[in-house]
């Protein structure tokens, strides 16, 4: 898909989505067929890389999401210049394994990117995400160079009408979201929807224009094809950065995988110890029809390893 073709597709979908929202019948936009055996898999008790293999197999295999010759963009949380043990960033072994499986599934290119909050070079190296991406056979993209960001209209958005987004979000065939579940001082938890904030240039805009709504509305631009929630080491307080004296980590050895970004956030909220309804951006995303926070309607495969 070249850029022009993409933009045409985007504008068609934008119109469709806009119309859909206006008509009150939100559409499921990007490849969210529910043809697979399950809507979500949750794995517990193993190591992050192994749990991904178990979980994705139960979900119908990665081939359901990544086709031969496609360009894949992986968005981990690599935002902080802290070691992976601190539970602030995605487990590097998990990122590495996902990249590797994408390559094995025949992806033409696998890119990994995060517009980090701390200095990107330091964060990429300290979190070991850059090393993990390379080991898996992928390529780390610079996340903090404005030249790689493009303005894009967000169809159906009220606050985030347009956003400077990393160009690979618009160009990649498949986006895989790999957040880590954590406490967040202002949004209670940060997980899948919040992780996408690392694909935009202007974080300040979010914060000064109703943070929760902007977080939810970004998914109207592009919903990841797959979300893999790293809930192995969960920060239960002092998040999202964590500090030595006021954050606590809890080893839950869990992973949640689903194409439904709202559902994984709802499941993550329950895992963290709160109700999805108490997290405003999950509610907004649910109302916008980006996904469902009601896990009762989903076919969930729960696996203990």
């Amino acid at each position, binding site marked *: 898909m070249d850029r022009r073709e993409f933009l045409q597709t985007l504008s068609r979908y934008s119109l469709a989505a806009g119309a859909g929202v206006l008509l009150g019948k939100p559409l499921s936009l990007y490849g969210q067929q529910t043809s697979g055996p399950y809507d979500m898999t*949750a794995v*517990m008790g193993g190591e992050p890389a192994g749990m991904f293999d178990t979980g994705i197999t139960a979900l119908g295999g990665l081939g359901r999401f990544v086709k031969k010759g496609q360009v894949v963009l992986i968005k981990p949380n690599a935002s902080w210049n802290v070691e992976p043990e601190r539970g602030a960033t995605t487990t590097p072994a998990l990122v590495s394994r996902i990249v590797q499986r994408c390559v094995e599934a025949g992806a033409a290119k696998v890119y990994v990117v995060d517009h980090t909050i701390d200095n990107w070079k330091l964060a990429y190296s300290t979190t070991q995400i850059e090393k993990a991406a390379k080991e898996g056979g992928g390529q780390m993209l610079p996340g903090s160079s404005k030249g790689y960001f493009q303005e894009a209209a967000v169809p159906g958005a009220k606050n985030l009408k347009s956003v400077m987004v990393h160009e690979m979000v618009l160009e990649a065939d498949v986006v895989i979201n790999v957040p880590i579940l954590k406490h967040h001082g202002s949004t209670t938890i940060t997980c899948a929807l919040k992780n996408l904030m690392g694909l935009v240039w202007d974080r300040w805009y979010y914060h000064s224009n109703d943070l929760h709504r902007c977080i939810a509305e970004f998914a109207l631009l592009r919903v990841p094809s797959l979300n893999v929630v790293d809930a192995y080491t969960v920060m239960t307080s002092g998040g999202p950065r964590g500090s030595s004296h006021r954050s606590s980590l809890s080893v839950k050895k869990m992973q949640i995988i689903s194409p439904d970004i709202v559902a994984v956030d709802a499941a993550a909220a329950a895992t963290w110890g709160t109700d999805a309804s108490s997290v405003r951006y999950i509610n907004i995303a649910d109302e916008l029809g980006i996904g469902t926070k009601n*896990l009762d309607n989903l076919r969930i495969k729960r696996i203990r390893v």
Partner: protein
Amino acid sequence: MSKQGYKAVKLLRIAVAGAILLLFYISISISQPLYNSILKNLTRLQFFPSLINVVFSGGSWLAAGFLPVTFFTLLVGRLYCSVLCPLGIVQDILIFSSGKKRHRKYRTSPSAARLHAAIASISLVGLLIGLPLLFGLLEPYAFWGRIYRDLVLPLAAGVSIGVVEVLRTVNIFWAPVQFRGEIAAVMMTLIAAVLFVWLTCRYGRWYCNRLCPTGAVLRLLSLRPIVRMEFDKELCTKCGVCAHVCPAGCIDVSAQRVEYNRCIVCFECTVHCPFDALSFTAFSHRKQRQPAPFAGDPDLGRRKALMLAVGSLGAAAVGGFGFSLRPLSAASPDSSVQDTPGLAVLPPGSQSKRRYTRRCVSCHTCVSVCPTHVLQPSFFALGVSGFLQPIMDYKTAYCEWECSRCTQICPTGALKPLSIPQKKLVQMGTVEFDQDRCVVFTDGTDCGACAEVCPTQAVRMVPYKNGLTQPHTETDICSGCGSCEYACPVDLPKAIFVVAHSRHQTRDERVPQQTSPTEDVPEEFPF
């Protein structure tokens, strides 16, 4: 030594100088531990920065590169100026390229010892009394450092954007060189550099023998070097080739003598003399110790030089005494411990405004290596004495928590070297929160940008109302890193900001709540 020998020595000089300059550029451009240590060792050999570091800032004697420089200058003259000084090497490159194109010939220039001594004295006295403004502008390493950060870096940033654009068409994704800074600093250095380039291309090593404070000191040290350029008056035909090729203009052909104290030991004369009348040799003929006066200009003889030196040092001593500088006591008590409203935040390791502004020569090395570009050159934010000295600019960046590069690299010790754990204990200022401007209160929506980035939790979110959270500050554990100020999404003035200490404090550290993660694998799936 034969002609071939001099050619070889000249090539060696060029090779060493080229390698040193290349190392300077590479090590200042690549901010990694290995390159940082190369840069650090290179700056240790810079005469005045190392002198200030060891004598004024109480730096380690490992940094005392000025001692070997002094020794070698007494021995062989100002070799420093042609192989160690980056500004000198840059001049040689300019001279080489301009000479090739226009067949420029240099002329014997007057000694200008009085002018040079006067300028050097004024700048040195300024340094001693705590006004390093003129000294900082003229000191060659500082000048080179500013050229790098204000001209080379933005140029590289511009070029790299083009390179990145080309590479991305073939699916190679690189990040362009980052540059952030106010145009004023760039313009100032640009004007100075244009003038400098013009002077150098036209008059050769003019800067080194008129304006350079290091040059002035090395002139005194090289009045009678043990090994030096000498004429063989028998062989010399006074053809004048040597004077035409001498970039320092220090050869008087009619008197058949070289003014050693201006000679930068470049070996051009020895290489170009058609009659091999010039040689670099240990002088031994006692009879010829009083050379003829230098034509047309009062010669910088030993007596005069000593008088100039004594005069300068005397003035400096009086000045220094008058302003009661206590250079060796690093933490000399400040008269102004109170925080001055609106004071710029001082970089880590600066300790106090007074200590910092007296030792910083504005070489901007810290600015160049700062990973977040929070260090920016100031103008008069620190007063006249702090002209061009770097300050923390929290409007465009924040101080990276896991970093103390600026303190490690500072050539003069104006920033005292700190390990990362030591730097984490420094309190550069404290956080102040203005509730009336905060998004949570003005818009009634969640924000928390400040608390999110705070590395110490000196800002954290506590319950407010309607499920919202509001920032809560604890100044005793605040490091003043500016993360909150930078992250605050409110238009200026920000709702949360750092109030600078004019004298750095030590912040409190809280005892860790948890040493290792708790094992908490759920019995059942929680959903």
